[in-house]
């Protein structure tokens, strides 16, 4: 039990720290690397919630896929502009006030309701159940999702193609 709590706090500190670094770091490239750390930390949270499959998907798609795409975008735009893209922020005070107000609202809403303190026992083999659910009850949304991915990726290629 104490190991679990320690792991949660460690992951939480890594997550919050890297998330803050993502939004505050001056160098855009560093921000992306911090985002990779935050996404990896989220995979750790998923592991703690017994969702091994989602942790693997998170690492492959987010930390592997999105970070690579963003790095490519930075490299491309940097080459075009011929100078390093520096990150500047504006209206930090206002943004901090709005974010803190939203956080206070959400936390007070979370605290108002009684929530379960211990997770119930899981059905055996969560990944198997997940696969069953995706390919039986949710098979239609799943296929629609495939269509959406195809359309989005084709759209991305169309947008980013070189001028002819």
């Amino acid at each position, binding site marked *: 039990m104490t190991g679990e709590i320690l792991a949660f706090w460690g992951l939480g500190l890594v997550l919050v720290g890297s998330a803050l670094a993502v*939004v505050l770091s001056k160098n855009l490239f560093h921000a992306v690397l911090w985002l990779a750390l935050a996404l990896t930390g989220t995979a750790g949270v998923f592991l703690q*919630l017994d969702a091994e499959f989602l942790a693997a998907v998170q690492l492959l798609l987010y930390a592997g*896929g999105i970070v690579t795409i963003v790095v490519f975008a930075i490299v491309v735009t940097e080459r075009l502009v011929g100078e390093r*893209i520096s990150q500047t922020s504006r209206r930090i005070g*206002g943004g901090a006030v709005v974010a803190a107000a939203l956080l206070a609202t959400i936390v007070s809403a979370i605290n108002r309701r009684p929530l379960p303190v211990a997770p119930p026992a899981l059905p055996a083999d969560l990944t198997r*159940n*997940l696969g069953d659910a995706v390919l039986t009850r949710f098979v239609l949304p799943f296929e629609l999702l495939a269509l*959406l991915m195809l359309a989005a990726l084709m759209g991305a290629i169309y947008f980013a193609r070189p001028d002819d």
Partner: protein
Amino acid sequence: MGLQAYLTLAAVIFCIGLFGVMTRRNTIGILLGIELMLNAVNINLVAFARYNADVTGMVFTVFTICITVAEAALGLAIVILLFRVRRTVMADHLDLLKG
């Protein structure tokens, strides 16, 4: 750990992402903030699924992860296109629609 701890962690990350979206001037930086916010939502979904012992929330997480990837790919393609047309990725300078 209780469900409350995970929800609070997700709320903190969501608000940090929101702060990034509101304060960043670089369009790619804004997209990074959006990624953080979507990530926080995923933590919420998985936590609720685990504490209700219901796999449906995890199915939904698979869907949101895929949609996030599509969003990132499209968003960055639009950024590259904007860059080619306007030679800038600063959101302040993208004011074509301003009357």
